């Protein structure tokens, strides 16, 4: 098969080429300008953050050797040559780790319940009144933007040292994050069932219960499981400020230069996060696999 490629007369071609070149040049100019602006911002940021490449390069050896140090036992042997010695405190660490997971579980559950109660007021299509929605949204935004560990710092002073402060901090932060995600699901829900239920003379609560809830339940559970996974990571550092969990042990080990302990605790944390990652992933596909496939 032969195809003919039509060749335009040179005059027309020159004109088209000119236009093309101009369009490309404009795009390039904008790109260069944007890149220059970004680069300038970076330089200002580098000065602001006291970046010192000389210290970085002279200490980079430290970073590498830090890892070799945390992987060395006191006797000078590599940690994996004597696992029993490496994980000498496994009993205590596992207990702390269990506490960490519990903190994030209880915190996520409280947060999810609160978010569940509040999100219908924050969603655009189900909120009973605009002023209520505005207040709800600002409240959730506040709970979400202030980092969990800042809440933990304040709660440690109010409720005393211990896991309770950690749980409440995780709960408040989860309420903010989940409240937003839940209300977004509700906003995407189909409103026709709501009209149907309302036409039978049902109250607002019945509308939510029988028209909205069946549509959004799966999404809620999925987001709550994801949040649980994130919270395990967050709860692992709550101990830094005295709010319970494995973080307490870790910060002591890092500050007091118990090198092999640092790596042992880090390994247990990473393994726990992996396991929870896989478990929640399995649970989600198990619970919502059917819906996802259709």
């Amino acid at each position: 098969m032969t195809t003919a490629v039509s060749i335009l007369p040179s005059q027309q071609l020159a004109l088209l080429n000119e236009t093309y070149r101009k369009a490309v040049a404009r795009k390039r100019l904008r790109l260069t300008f944007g890149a220059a602006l970004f680069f300038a911002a970076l330089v200002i940021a580098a000065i602001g953050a006291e970046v010192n490449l000389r210290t970085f390069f002279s200490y980079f050896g430290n970073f590498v050797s830090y890892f070799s140090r945390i992987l060395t036992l006191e006797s000078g042997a590599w940690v994996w040559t004597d696992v029993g010695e490496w994980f000498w405190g496994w009993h205590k660490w596992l207990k702390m780790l269990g506490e960490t997971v519990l903190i994030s579980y209880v915190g996520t559950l409280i947060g999810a319940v609160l978010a569940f109660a509040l999100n219908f007021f924050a969603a655009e299509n189900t909120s009973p009144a605009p002023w209520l929605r505005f207040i709800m949204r600002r409240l959730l935004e506040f709970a979400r933007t202030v980092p969990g560990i800042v809440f933990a710092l304040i709660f440690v002073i109010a409720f005393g040292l211990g896991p309770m402060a950690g749980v409440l901090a995780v709960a408040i932060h989860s309420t903010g994050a989940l409240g937003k995600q839940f209300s977004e699901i509700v906003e995407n829900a189909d409103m026709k069932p709501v009209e149907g239920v309302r036409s039978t003379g049902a109250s607002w609560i019945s509308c939510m219960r029988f028209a909205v809830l069946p549509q959004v339940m799966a999404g809620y559970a999925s987001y709550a499981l994801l949040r649980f996974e994130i919270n395990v990571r967050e709860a692992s550092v709550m101990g830094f400020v005295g709010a319970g969990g494995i973080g307490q042990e870790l910060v002591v080990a890092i500050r007091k230069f118990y090198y092999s302990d640092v790596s042992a605790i880090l390994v247990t944390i990473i393994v726990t996060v992996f396991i929870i990652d896989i478990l929640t992933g399995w649970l989600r596909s198990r619970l919502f696999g059917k819906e996802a496939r259709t």
Partner: protein
Amino acid sequence: MSQLPTPDREQLRARYPDIFEPPAAARLATPVMALCAFGVFVFGLIDLDFSPTKLLSGLHQLGWITLMMIPPDPGSSLPLYLKALGETLSIALLGTTIAAIFALPVSLLAAKNIVPSNILRFPVRRFLDSIRGVDTLIWALVWINVVGLGPFAGVLAIAVSDFGAFGKLFSEAIEAADRKQVEGIRASGGSALHEIRFGLMPQVLPVIAGQVLYFIESNTRSATIIGIVGAGGIGLQLAEQIRVLEWQKVSFLILMILVAVAAIDWISGKLRFAIIGQRAVV
């Protein structure tokens, strides 16, 4: 006038036994799971020393603290706080940029359509996962041991922990890219590098830019807290003021953080619209 056919219940029951009488396992699954979840919750409350008296006295204290926070007042240290806020924003911007620059080549190695071999891809993925498994605050502590106290440790901490996240996100973006354009480049005689540069990158870069912008925003939040362990920024001031119970300054600092995050949120939202276009954002 039409009449609805009266359904024959018996016949329907015979035809759809699953709906009329679901097996016991399916009927019991939800309540049992809810009961289990509740049981673990109660166990957690007991194990974590929850008690009503403690909760009440804590709430009482919290009420006092909130009262003492009003009105927010920086005292005489406003310039110091503004500088700290600038430091925080710098940490977020630099850390995210460094992470993105280093993550791009590594994410290519973790993408299924670029490195088909499982043997090479698996370790790269696990490596990225382990980096992600460690919280930013822990990285900050490690870097403080290496480069000393100060914002530079914060930059490096954000860079390392985001490196893990970006590696995963970028490789997912690359895997979702359309094969056809890559095949087109190959058909016209391009090398493997040409395929990546002209076939993949134009598709992937806008997605990546959107993700980087989103992370700058979320890192402004992370950067506020790494100061708590001494890695610079406004968190350092915040933790200090909480420890000395200067509640008016604390509330002022929290307000500053809220305003800064909202501002960054707004700016990056605008930029994302400009880069990916409205359709992709929704």
